[in-house]
């Protein structure tokens, strides 16, 4: 071989090598990630997806750590705080740039995006058996409808999508009329009702049943003041063999045994009791704002000699502690027994102002607190979040029946709830339609206070502003001077509007806020 020839050959080879940068070599193949395009190949994968939707309900902005509570619970005429914190909520100084408003908005849409993708991927997927399809789609439809229920309650018209749109489409989406959303969601709930079972074995408690779908549909009708619809759905529930009013009011909230939180009155709850097997701590738990703070607040006479120590010892003996926040406590008027109807047994199960013989500085919601230490540390409340329960359904039925036909048939429902509240019984009778309606304002308060129903009730009755203005507050709160007409709807978050100006296309005022 001559050197010159070698060079030619080698140069050619090298050029081929240089040019041979193979595209295959640079192709990115993921072996350890689940790509969305390679999923939903069997029943098990469909089930994983649905489980994920329930997990997402545990986001801070939703049912965990006082997310939705800021919209439904805090700042009404029943719940206040023991100190000047969370002022935006309690004083009605929230606005379009309030961070928690945006957190909840984002959390709701995260659930919706997941539900959209899961529904469209599972529906008609030949790799997934029909029974699993039905179950999965039923649950996803319910959860999505629950998210749009919150969205339409809080903001009215909102961006609405039923399948996962592209990033571009979602970035430029406009608001949709809430009436349309509600109608389609009710249709989805009809479907969910048909797809879902009436009950689950113990290992699956916490999943949505057809009764959860029914309750949510009743709620939708109620928001639309479609009383016939409300009544029909409530009647279905009342006739359901799976749910009933418990005989004893206190039993509904009995969380002493964390392992046994589900009872017949509960229609749907978000499950917060999961223990981490590795470190034996709660993995699926929420903050507890109903519980008192020891030392800082309680007991009342903690600065007197020996009181604090004796109190702590008494708690310790019961394996209890007051390691909470004290930021969701009854407002003064609700706490006063004289404001309740004589003989209402619910009062002493609802309000507590003295514990183990020690006077407390503040009243607390006895039905909502849980001092148990083993299953209920400060940040780690294992108590489930009850979303729908039967007493609410009975009272809704009563209200709807009264609105439709007057009190005649409505007594039956309200008196079923009152039967366990009074001994001897004090049923309602002989009321006018108007009297029935107004008395219901209080009945719902005494039955459901502290449970995140009240603010929405006041809103739909149109008495939110006047009620807030006439409610006695603790000295550090003054919502009366701040609340106005515009607070009846939340503004879409300011940052969201900056990122997607199309949200102003249908309403340039952003619910009257700009």
């Amino acid at each position, binding site marked *: 071989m001559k*050197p010159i020839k*070698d060079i030619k050959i*080698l140069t050619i*080879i*090298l050029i081929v*090598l*240089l040019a*041979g*940068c*193979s595209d*295959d*070599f*640079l*192709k*990115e*193949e*993921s*072996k*350890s*990630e*689940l*790509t*969305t*395009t390679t*999923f939903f190949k069997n029943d098990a*994968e469909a089930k*994983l997806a649905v*489980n*994920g939707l*329930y*997990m*997402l309900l545990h986001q801070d902005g939703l049912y965990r750590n006082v997310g939705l509570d800021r919209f439904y619970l805090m700042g009404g005429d029943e719940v206040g705080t023991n100190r000047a914190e969370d002022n935006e909520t309690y004083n009605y100084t929230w606005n379009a740039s309030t961070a928690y408003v945006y957190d909840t908005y*984002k959390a709701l*849409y*995260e659930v919706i*995006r*997941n539900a959209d*993708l899961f529904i469209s991927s599972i529906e008609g997927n030949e790799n997934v058996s029909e029974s699993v399809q039905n179950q999965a789609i039923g649950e996803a439809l319910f959860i999505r409808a629950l998210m749009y229920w919150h969205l339409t309650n809080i903001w009215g018209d909102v961006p609405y*999508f039923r399948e996962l749109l592209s990033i571009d489409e*979602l*970035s430029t*989406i406009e608001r949709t009329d809430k009436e349309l959303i509600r109608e389609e969601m009710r249709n989805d709930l009809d479907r969910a009702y048909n797809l879902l079972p009436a009950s689950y074995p113990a*290992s*699956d*408690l*916490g*999943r949505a049943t057809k009764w959860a779908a029914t309750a949510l549909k009743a709620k939708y009708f109620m928001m639309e003041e479609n009383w016939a619809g409300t009544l029909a759905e409530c009647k279905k529930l009342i006739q359901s063999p799976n749910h009933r009013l418990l005989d004893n009011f206190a039993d509904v909230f009995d969380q002493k045994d964390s*392992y046994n939180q589900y009872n017949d009155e509960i229609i749907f709850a978000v*499950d917060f*009791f*999961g223990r981490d*097997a*590795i*470190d*034996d701590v709660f*993995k*699926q738990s929420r903050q507890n704002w109903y519980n008192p703070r020891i030392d800082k607040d309680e007991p009342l006479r903690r600065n007197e000699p020996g009181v604090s120590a004796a109190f702590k010892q008494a708690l310790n003996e019961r394996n209890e502690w007051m390691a909470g926040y004290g930021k969701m406590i009854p407002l003064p008027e609700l706490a006063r027994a004289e404001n309740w109807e004589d003989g209402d047994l619910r009062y002493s199960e609802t309000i507590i102002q003295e514990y183990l013989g020690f006077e407390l500085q503040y009243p607390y919601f006895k039905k909502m607190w849980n001092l148990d230490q083993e299953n209920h540390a400060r940040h780690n409340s294992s108590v489930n979040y009850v979303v729908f329960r039967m007493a609410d359904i009975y009272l809704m039925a009563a209200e709807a029946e009264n609105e439709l036909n007057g009190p005649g048939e409505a007594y039956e429902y309200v008196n079923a709830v009152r039967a366990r509240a009074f001994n001897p019984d004090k049923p309602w009778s002989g009321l006018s339609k108007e009297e029935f309606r107004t008395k219901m304002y209080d009945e719902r308060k005494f039955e459901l206070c502290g449970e995140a129903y009240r603010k929405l009730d006041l809103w739909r009755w149109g008495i939110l502003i006047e009620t807030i203005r006439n409610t006695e507050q603790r000295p550090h709160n003054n919502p009366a001077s701040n609340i106005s007409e515009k607070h009846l709807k939340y503004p879409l978050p300011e940052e*969201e509007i900056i*990122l*997607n100006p199309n949200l102003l296309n249908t309403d340039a005022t952003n619910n009257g806020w700009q």
Partner: protein
Amino acid sequence: MKTKKFEYLMVFIFGIVFSFQGFAQEKTINGTISDDQGFPLPGVTVIIKGTTMGTASDVDGNYSLKNVPADAVLTFSFVGMKTKELAVTNETNFNVVMETDAIGLEEVVAIGYGVTKKRDLVSSVTSVDSEVLENQPTPRIDQAMQGRAAGVSVTSTSGAPGAAATVRIRGTNSVKGNNSPLYVIDGFIAGSDFDLNTLNVNDVKSIEVLKDATALSIYGTRGAAGVILITTKSGKRISGGKPNISFNHYTTVQTIANNYEVLTGQDYLDYMNEASQFIPGPNGFGYTDTSLPLEFPAGGNYANTDWIGLVKQNGVINNTDVSVSGGSNNMNYYVSFNRFDQKGVIKNSGLERYSLRVNLDMDISDKVRSGIRMSIADINQENNKVEWDQTVNRLLSIRPVYNEDGTYNGINPKSGREERNPVADINLRQDNRNTKKFVGNSYLEYEPISGLRLKSTVGTSLTDFRENQYLPGELPERMVYQLGGSATVTQNRYRSILNENTITFSKELNDHRITALAGATWQKDVAETSGMSASGFVNDAVGYNNISLGSEQSTYIMNTGYVQRTFASLLARLDYSYRGKYLVTLVGRRDGSSVFEEGNKYAFFPSLGLAWNLHEEDFMKSVDAISSLKLRTSYGIVGDQGVSPYNSLATFTGTYNYFNQNLFNAIIIGDLPSSNLSWETTKQFDLGMDLALLNGRINVEADFYKKNTTDLLLERKVPGTVGNNQLQNIGEIENKGIDLNIRTMNVSKPDFFWETTLVLSANRNKVVDLGGVDWIQLDEAVDASANGGYMRLIVGETVPTFYGVTYLGTYKNQEEIIADGWEGKGFIGGPRFDDVNNDGELTEADRKVLGSPEPDFQGGLRNVLSYKGFTFDMFFQFTYGNEILNRSRETSLFGKNEFNLSTEVRNRWIEGVNESSDIPRAGTSQGAFFPPSSIWVEDASFLRLKQVTVSYDLPTSKIGFEKVIKSANIYLTGNNLFLLSNFSQGDPEVSYLGTESLAQGLYYGQYPYTRSFVAGIKLNF
């Protein structure tokens, strides 16, 4: 496609192998080489010009070279000497005298994919000699490089054996991407995460730091953070020479430097007693109520535990190197063995390394050379078991080590909560890791005609990593809940395969010299990770060694992962020089990477450099004072692929949900996939000067640079209907600065020599754009408990910037409290902050810039004196103008119930005693959550006497050992002997969050730094 490529490669390789050629016309030349003092010079390279054929002189300076063509020119070269050329005549014996070259223009400097002479260097490259790295009491070169190279900032993060340092070349470029330099070891691209513990410092021959665009753009997308080229030692070709056997051993004793004192004993009790009697009082201005009971009444029996004393010990390092090197006419070798064994200054921590290296080069024929660089390391690390930040910041002296029943105490006596016990940690925790690393890089080089070289390399790096951790059930914090033991095992494997093929062509034609390089490379990196854990062990007998025995099955967690990255690149460089005066370098690399999306895989990184050797000009010849002067400038583009693999794929994330206490697996949609991401682009301009004065007595290398990194990868907010954030190419950071290296030969006499080197770097960093937002919080993910945060990226400020409210000292009277509107919250003797907008709250509006960890300048100063056989080497290292954020101030100065305090509180505000103090009164801050403030920020400037070495060359000939021992040297080194600093807690060199974090400069108590004394001996046989 892949196999086809492989075939081409084989043809290429075999093509080279089968084309060996003979040579005609040969004769043998020999002679002796000596220096200008008349001493024989061993190891001088003798090469037939234009070929790779050559040899090196032996111990007596003799050389012999066969097969020399009759018309050949021989070049004689040696580091520190001027290269000589001699034309072969009829003679066969040439004795050569080499002249010292103070300017070092003939020094060979490694650059990417080749070497060049300093004279011809266009780029900005800093060389670090191996002599400054040798025998440092650390297993890592990053530590050893501190203060040695201009433009390179090395910050220790921890004194733990084997802890990495933060290395930044010319500042911080990237937010989400990489800021650590790329390590290239003997041509093998080992990555920026290369574990430097696996490289024996004493095997390193030289380190080159590539800094400017022409040096870096040959590394394309991996060059933006700078490149560190490491060249390991090789044997010398000495015809007929004997192997050189070298033995080196040192022993180091280490103690904790800058001991930090915490509040103990009566001082602590006094403070807490004072706090217990402080109340807001009836008027709300603060009041001492002496009727309240003392927390620690006199006469009580209170524990007074010296936690630091219980966990520290004297550290010891033993390091042994044995190497054999040598060569013959057609091959050379270097084989070394190293054992490094360190016992840390905290009990039960340490590192032991065994490493073996084989470096081999051989001529297969006149035209074909081959060789390999290979190292194997086995490292056992006993991880630190103690949370040092807990030991110095949180543990209370009143907490006993043991309970009355002899078990370990695990409860903080103030909070009543469970807390780790460092003595139990040391005695009970098991935590160790083993790393095995093989790096091998082989080459085949073919030179068909003079000046044309074809080179192909195949290299691989294999890493096997295992970490074992066991927390026995006996640990007090686990005993509280009866959790039983818990074991975690992590086992990862990494492999990287690199093939590089280059053609180099050099030609000299009259006044023109041209060198051209072209190449193609492929690299594939694969990481396979796995981990498992189990707990509920009923006894502690087997732990991680038998993870399923005795543990609870319900606690098992397993995970595995697989990540692959591939690169395919083309590269080229053209060097042109006219009469050695005008130098031009053109560099380009076309890089392809798997982490980017289809259609976006490739990018091109070009650069251009110009240099002018002024001293070669006639008009400069008359200026005697200037012995050499070169001006350099360059501009170019380098990239960084800050994207993690699989970022553009839409994926699901695994999660779980409980239904009625039953665990179910689940999935949700993962992070938003990115789209159309590209490289972060760094455009860098460099203007430099190399100046030698007075015949090389004074050498100055100075560079000014300015670089702008654009297309920064940042999370951009997207509407809530879309998701949370999406990674996009937005944002810009600017770095500009000066690198300065001044070396002066103060005295250069035969038996007295004094040299001074000053290294100085000044970088100015600025955030130009963050994609539309004004600032990004850096600490919220790592330190959610700091009220409002303290570390940010702010447009217009340095990366990172400390941020917070201004601390004004203590309230001295009621009037000040009233004036501030702080009644009920501010107390006399309590802390006072600048409430800028007077709204009675400390909010965002009250915060401002408080400092930055970026120094105004930093560097090192080295003096070497040698007299006869003695050498004295003294090295100072310094930084100036940087700040530190002392995270412990919140509790150590203000007092929080369950945390310990600094001894500075002895000088606190005390009613009627010390009312001028600005350290708050005891009890005024308990239960308060003050935001980060200016008192957390401290001056971090320092001057450190980093190293003093005295070494002595034993006169072997005088004691009659010269037949056996060629040379013997003993040395004594002291490290970190002296520190000048204003920092309240010892050593201000901190980076609590590690080397990769942007949030540098955070102090919260890292593994303590040491003061070391080294004694060693070096023998050559």
